[in-house]
């Protein structure tokens, strides 16, 4: 789709992230996606919390705020509810979004505020120089866990679905086409849209997403999910996913009598999230990592419902100004 904007129209300043940081790749994809979406820069607000990735609004030629640690989703909520006309993007890292900001993350999803919620997941605290995050795997060794962590991580999709999220998509930061695709889908989706971006931290957690970080790795270790398409993957699309009992299994097409017709077809719009969750939670080495739009289900949004309720009550009630409000009370005259 052609719009009158180019990626350049959304760019500002010189990013200060470490060379090779996944944030650079994501930022470029965001500029490109915004140009393709075509909302004017002055009608966009990009709101982040604190952390390396939360510097992102400074590199946007839009409105925006780089706020305080963990509160981006809450601040974005107020921004969107106060002005539903704005296209509001909330950008957080895994610490900002899921540790200190976990409460706001789940409630923004539950309320289904029409926000595009970007979760840049590098499984580490970078700005504070390398502590484990709520997405670091159990046993992860970091400065604050020299003997390995003794806690399980959050899996963002699980948290999003548990909070009744209606949109979840995933892309690898270096994979520009997929990133642009899910950002556009997130914008098109009405309601809270969570985009998990798998992103490398070259300094403190280098290689965390290595299995899917380059094209060759993704061909082997990832599956691109597209609504209505069979779930096939592999260098020559020779593998597919089938249901087995309560779970999924990887099959090779052509082997054991499996044909393309036996392969599951992706349904991102299915209201029941059971299979979508299974897809989102797939991990190597036994399963490919799911990329693309995993869940995209229409539901009433909070901000629209607020507006609709105001319109409805305006229609019903007889008072519409402060002066009229006063006169709804019992009053008396003092002479």
């Amino acid at each position, binding site marked *: 789709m052609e719009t009158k904007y180019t990626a350049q129209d959304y760019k500002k300043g010189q990013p200060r992230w470490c060379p090779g940081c996944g944030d650079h790749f994501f930022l470029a994809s965001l500029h490109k996606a915004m140009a393709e979406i075509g909302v004017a820069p002055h009608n966009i607000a990009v709101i982040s919390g604190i952390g390396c990735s939360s510097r992102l609004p400074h590199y946007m030629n839009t409105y925006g705020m780089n706020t305080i640690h963990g509160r981006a989703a809450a601040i974005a909520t107020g921004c969107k509810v106060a002005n539903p006309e704005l296209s509001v993007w909330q950008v957080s890292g895994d610490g900002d979004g899921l540790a200190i900001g976990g*409460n706001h993350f789940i409630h923004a999803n539950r309320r289904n505020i029409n926000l595009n919620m970007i979760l840049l997941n590098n499984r580490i605290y970078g700005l504070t120089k390398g502590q484990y995050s709520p997405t670091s795997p159990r046993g992860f060794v970091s400065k604050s866990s020299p003997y390995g962590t003794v806690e399980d991580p959050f899996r963002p999709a699980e948290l999003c679905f548990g909070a009744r999220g209606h949109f979840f998509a995933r892309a690898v930061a270096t994979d520009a086409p997929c990133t642009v695709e899910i950002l556009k889908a997130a914008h098109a989706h009405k309601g809270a849209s969570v985009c998990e971006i798998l992103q490398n931290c070259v300094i403190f957690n280098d290689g965390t997403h290595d299995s899917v970080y380059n094209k060759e790795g993704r061909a082997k270790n990832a599956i691109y999910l597209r609504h209505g398409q069979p779930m096939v993957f592999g260098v020559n699309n020779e593998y597919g996913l089938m249901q087995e009992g309560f779970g999924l299994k990887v099959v090779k097409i052509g082997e054991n009598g499996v044909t393309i017709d036996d392969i599951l077809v992706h349904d991102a719009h299915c209201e029941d999230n059971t299979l979508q969750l299974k897809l989102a939670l797939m991990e190597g080495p036994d399963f490919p990592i799911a990329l693309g739009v995993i869940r995209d289900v229409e539901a009433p949004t909070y901000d629209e419902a607020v507006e609709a309720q105001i319109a409805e009550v305006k229609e019903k009630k007889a008072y519409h*100004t402060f002066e009229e409000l006063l006169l709804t009370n019992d009053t008396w005259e003092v002479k």
Partner: protein
Amino acid sequence: MSEQIIVKERDEVIVRFSGDSGDGMQLAGNIFSTVSATVGNDICTFPDYPADIRAPQGSLTGVSGFQVHIGSGKVYTPGDLCDVLVAMNAAALKTQYRYAKPDATIIIDTDSFGPADLKKAAFATEDPLAEMNIDADRVVACPITQMVKDCLADSGMEPKAVLKCRNMFALGLVCWLFDRDLNVAFNYLREKFAKKPALAEANIKVIQAGYDYGHNTHSSATNVYRVETKHKVPGRYMDITGNKATAYGFIAAAEKAGLKLYLGSYPITPATDVLHELSKHKSLGVTTVQCEDEIAGCASAVGASYAGALAVTSTSGPGICLKSEAMNLAVIMELPLVVLDVQRGGPATGLPTKSEQTDLLQVLFGRNGESPMPVLAATSPTDCFDAVYMACKIALEHMTPVVLLTDAFVANGSGAFRLPNLAEYAAINPPYVPEELKGTWTPYQRQEENGVRYWAVPGREGFQHILGGLEKDNKTGAISTDPENHDLMTRLRQQKIDAIPVPDLVVEGDDEDAELLIVGFGGTYGHLHAAMDEMRAAGKKVALAHFKYINPLPKNTAEVLRKYPKVVVAEQNSGQLAAWLRMKVDGFVPCQYNEVKGQPFSTNQLISVFTKMMEE
């Protein structure tokens, strides 16, 4: 301006217990009278038996009432209309509501409002409150029957006997509302049922349960306190509580400024009524978001402010602790925000339903970094309206968060409120960035006259900008860690607050030749004024200077405080205003009167303390 102020306290309360003739309303009323008499109240009671002794249960003709008028002064009559009406069933509400004041608190047993009960009481619909035009906010709706059954489940009592204890639950709840000592009631029952100790203990258990219910639900009787001027300005009046006046002030300011009103809030006693009130008025476009926590209440308001709304968050002291970081974000981003703190007893959860002035230093200083923030304190229930209006005006015109302090006493108290004419209120003109600055404008560009930065609301082409919690360069608005720039920005933020014009401090009473100047702030105005009135009537030379604007202080503060031979700062904390004034006025060392009891001042106590101070 030296209007005589009257503070009416709990010493003028009328409670009416009503229910079926078999519900034991007379006993409940009698015990409440006894309990009140023991604490020194004068009482006058009026048993109102039904004409029809054997009327069917739940019928209109079977309703029995008992009215108690309690007062600390002489009480001559059982009173006309009650402040609290207990209606144990639908018929009682139907027949007795006519004896309730328009703003009375109504306690009902929801278990006696079923379809059959409503039919017997001749209600036409299933919503008796709406049918009788009773504001649900004034109703304490409680499943009394069920709670009594649960309470006595293990007592081995017959179901019929259990039901006879419902009256004691209502009594316990009323005792909570009026802070009555339950031990007096317990002793009364133990004496009355000396031969049936099990029955006495069952009744006692239920009274305690009713009391605990009030405690657990933070029930309060609105309109127990009234603060009024004796001579009223002609005009049209309504009754209003402090919290309602606060909500109205927000609505008025938003309308005057031409902005959407956004409230981000989380329920907390005693501030929740503001959330309730504002949530009703969607026909005025008011947007309220009940957030997941106090932090989100404030944070979402910061987001709404950035988006161009009049953004407000309401809370009490514990909520301020949680909101502090987001309040500070509004300080550094220089965005308008009004933070309402309805103070209650602290620290921590403290005394949630009681009143104190203990958050003053918290709101002045309780944030990291140099964080100047204007603070106002409403002086009476009706003053909440004007105070909120000014807080909004300052926030919007000076691009700053502002704290408005009220307290549980002011919030739940009421007064006769002269309907304001918005046309007479000062205009509110936010400093929107002028279109001609497009191209050269930067976010921290300031207006010369008051140091206020311009407001560029998202949606305006050519004014895109990024704000944030990191220090910014005073010229470009880009992130800066430059030492000189930070020092300058710190000063600029302080100067901006210092430059906010506030009205001069007014001295009431013997302003020329007072021997004692009483100084206070916020919700104690009525009591301090009443104390001054009485002392002057007794021939003493006394004046009162009461602060509503606390940061910045009125320009004439030092001049006033130094003018009188003796000054007493009287406040419901350990000396927070006194500390603030000593910090701001060189060499000022006042006498202090401090009480932290969770209760309003007693005028008599104040008079005795001040008189003694004058004699020393």
